[in-house]
């Protein structure tokens, strides 16, 4: 699957509405025949990145499997806001068991479908970053290692938002959370900790690992579609800004997700069998300040007693990502017209 992004003369941008695209290139979300896997009436916060990501991903997975899909959900925001008894927003077969066991539960569902002769039924497991990198990590690594036929999607909002914004193993350095307060000589979360789960997933040599953000719907949907073409353990890590936990405006979710990618703080790429096969290049290289300043969780780095030293360390992390994945293919800041994704 190769996609050749083009700059649309009509809008002078790579990003366009579906109306300028051929039918086959239009998003699943733009189709009136989409599933609406998560229906309206759920209780997600305004501007929630997670519910956007989940809706895009599951509707795409539903289309890719002709509706033959079961979703397994870890405990967390997504589970809580979607199923306050006796209501449910799920219009697909959906099972929630525990916080830390979604990958294993999904393995069980997939095994049952095989023995029941229903191998056309595919399984998606989903969790937030806490349910993925921390409490669910043992089960996830086991599922990867066995190469079970499960697509696991992590909606990463970089903390335990459902319990009131505490630090997780995916919380970035310097970010303020309820358990890494903005106090002391090194305010916020410490440097040098945390797990880079996409790379850990790649180290399991599973057939497919990809990252995405809710800022690029085409990319997210296409990665889900690609994942559903493959059998075995697959991992999709989606950055989903959280207005509540990040202290950002609810209408800035997409913008912040885009800046995460454009700064290099969140590399967007795909890998098959442990090798990177494509990256989404940075189009407008942006200093990390522009990303950080939109979020109150980084407010202690600016204002009356700014910490440019800490901002510089965060810039170093972005620069390392850019170097590791080759996110800037031409001169920094230049538009990249010839990007090719495989």
């Amino acid at each position, binding site marked *: 699957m190769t996609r050749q992004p083009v700059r649309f003369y009509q809008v002078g941008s790579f990003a366009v509405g579906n109306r300028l695209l051929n039918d086959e290139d239009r998003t699943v979300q733009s189709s009136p025949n989409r599933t609406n896997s998560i229906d309206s009436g759920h209780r997600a916060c305004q501007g929630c990145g997670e519910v956007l990501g989940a809706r895009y991903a599951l509707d795409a997975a539903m289309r890719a499997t002709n509706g033959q899909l079961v979703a397994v959900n870890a405990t967390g925001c997504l*589970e809580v806001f979607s*199923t306050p*008894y006796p209501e*449910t927003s799920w219009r697909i077969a*959906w099972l929630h*068991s525990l916080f830390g066991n979604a990958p294993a539960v999904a393995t069980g569902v997939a*095994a*049952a479908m095989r023995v029941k*002769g229903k191998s056309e039924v595919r399984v998606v497991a989903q969790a937030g970053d806490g349910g993925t990198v921390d409490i669910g990590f*043992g089960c996830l690594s086991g599922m990867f290692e066995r190469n079970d036929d499960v697509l696991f999607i992590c909606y990463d909002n970089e903390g335990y938002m459902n319990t009131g914004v505490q630090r997780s193993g995916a919380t970035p350095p310097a970010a303020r959370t309820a358990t890494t307060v903005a106090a002391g000589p090194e305010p916020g979360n410490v440097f040098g900790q945390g797990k880079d789960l996409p790379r850990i997933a790649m180290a399991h040599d599973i057939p497919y690992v990809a990252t995405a953000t809710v800022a690029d719907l085409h990319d997210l949907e296409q990665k889900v579609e690609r994942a559903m073409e493959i059998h075995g353990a697959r991992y999709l890590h989606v950055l989903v800004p959280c207005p509540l936990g990040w202290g950002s405006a609810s209408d800035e979710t997409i913008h912040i997700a885009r800046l995460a990618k454009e700064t290099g703080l969140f590399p967007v790429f795909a890998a098959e069998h442990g090798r990177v096969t494509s990256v989404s290049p940075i189009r407008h290289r942006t200093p990390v300040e522009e990303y950080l300043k939109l979020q109150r969780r980084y407010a202690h780095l600016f204002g009356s007693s700014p910490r440019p030293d800490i901002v510089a360390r965060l810039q170093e992390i972005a620069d390392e990502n850019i170097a590791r994945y080759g996110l800037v293919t031409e001169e920094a800041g230049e538009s990249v017209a010839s990007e090719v994704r495989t």
Partner: protein
Amino acid sequence: MLRQIEGSRAVAETVALCRPEVVCAYPISPQTHIIEAVGAMVKAGLLSPCEFINVESEFAAMSVSIGSSAAGARTYTATSSQGLLFMIEAVYNAAGLGLPIVMTLANRAIGAPINIWNDHSDAMAVRDSGWIQLFAETNQEAADLHVQAFRLAEELSVPVMVCMDGFILTHAVEGVDMLDQSVVDGFLPPYEPRQVLDPNDPVSIGAMVGPEAFEEVRYLAHLRQMDALERIPAIAQEFEELTGHASGGLVRSYRTEDADTIVVALGSVLGTIKDAVDVRRQAGERVGVVGITSFRPFPGEAVREALSGASRIIVLEKAFSIGFGGVLATDVALVVQGSNAKVFSVVAGLGGRAITRRSLEDLLAQSVRGELNPLTFLDLDQAAVDRERARMASTRRSGPSAENLLRDLGSDYAASKAQT
């Protein structure tokens, strides 16, 4: 067909006859022989279609079981001791979701101190989880209970745990009348789930439930266990008519007709107790035994009736609630309240300590003489305990008690060797 067979093997082959579709487990002694044998049968293609999944922990084993059961597959697993505790969150979850998983619990003590031998601490730790808990007295019963367990679990949509004493049963080779496939097929219809993950008829399973309905959901689970009190004896009777095996049921009495002293217990120790009762009967004492097969649901009425003639009830159990006393004894005392019977709690056989017929005879004699304490630890080495208490009193940093006791007993042993 009667075969000389290891208990684990008998259970594994009987589970295979139940046509499980997903089997998932993690190794832990003394459960491993069961899972190895089932795994070998799946690998050889003898159970097709069946998936055997090796996982990274017991927590994952029960979680995989939750997924496969919710997707409509007959699901089996087995564990022991620490393994049960490691999966305990998922154990509660399986019951809360009403998934008819069958699990063998090869009963083993819980550490620290680490100990691989038999007692019932593990089963008692999940007493309130919502699982049905059936205790096998013999390997014949352990094997048979698995067939009944699948039937019961799937009828009621409740998970069932078959408890069998680790090593004492799992590793004992004895005669077991193994069932034929056709008999099991006639007794156990294919699994027809009450709720299932089906993309063509999608439901949400595992929704969040707040105070407005949580109590009702829990009470419904209780009612299903009360239904089980009716179904357990009915299923056992049907099983007996089909196989001639008197396995399962709620409670079983032995020589209680005129007994004024009755011993109540769970599991394989019942055999030894019966031997002790036979001896005391010869001495003219009116003693009997009541074995409880169904610990959860607790058959209060059946227990009360079985104990109705007794004035002394000795509840002998391989577990206790530290800081209080017997667990089973508490249940028994509650159901016989209002009668004139006095309930004695005897804790015995912890961590695999042998419960000998001689000790039980002494216990019965003590009881008849009216010398039994309300809470007794059978064959406790009181002197060793006293010495450790003295060490703790004399030195602040007295060190780890378990190691102190071992050293103490080791020097005792060395001294006794030196004398002989």
